[in-house]
């Protein structure tokens, strides 16, 4: 399940909905990761652009990988502005046993940071500034810049 919201995430509601959806699915482990916007470098908040078609195919590939281990992944992300101390990102893994969930949440979140087509901007004094230094080039980037 991939959920996109305009603005900050309602953390208690989302975690509760996911819990209630799976509470009788016989999973022994539910491991959520909640990402919160921190106050640092004078930002008022963060803002996000998302390219949904590739985000969906990226997520579906992870869902298939999780399914092969008897697990499921869920993810929610914000579009647009999210202010300091609000949440922009939640992901979770449900699995029969804890080890699979602990390992999957790690690899899923790391690959999310490296590959999911989402762009982050700092909100500072009414400006929206691309967080270039904190961004990662997707694997295979740069092919159009190679000169013959």
């Amino acid at each position, binding site marked *: 399940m991939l959920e996109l919201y305009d603005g900050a995430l309602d953390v208690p509601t989302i975690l509760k909905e996911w819990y209630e959806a799976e509470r009788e699915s016989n999973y022994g482990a539910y491991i959520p990761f909640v*990402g919160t916007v921190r106050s640092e470098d004078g930002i008022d908040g963060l803002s*996000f*652009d*998302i*390219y949904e*078609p*590739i985000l969906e*195919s990226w997520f579906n590939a992870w869902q298939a990988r999780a399914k092969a281990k008897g697990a499921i992944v869920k993810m929610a*992300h914000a579009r647009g502005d999210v202010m300091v101390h609000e949440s*922009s*990102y939640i992901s979770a893994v449900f699995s029969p046993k804890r080890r699979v969930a602990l390992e999957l949440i790690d690899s899923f*979140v790391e690959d*999310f*940071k*490296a*590959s*999911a*087509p*989402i*762009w*982050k*901007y700092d909100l500072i004094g009414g400006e929206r500034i*691309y*967080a*270039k230094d*904190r*961004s*990662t*080039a*997707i*694997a*295979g*980037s*740069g*092919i*159009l*810049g*190679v*000169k*013959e």
Partner: protein
Amino acid sequence: MVRVEFLGPIQKDALEIEISNLNELAAILQDDEELQEWLKNSAVAVNDKIVVSLDVALNDGDKVSLLPPVCGG
């Protein structure tokens, strides 16, 4: 016509151009001064699938997307 879209922070309107492969697109975009840095660090998708080689034929109606460095979460 092939549609070329520039995603996220690349401030450029989409193009509609007559090209038959990604090598032709590379040559055209390399002439655009504003795109030089983005070409070096952007991934390329054809019809919403990431490609890792320029040896990709393009057909009428195809969509090419440039994806600059990402940072979700």
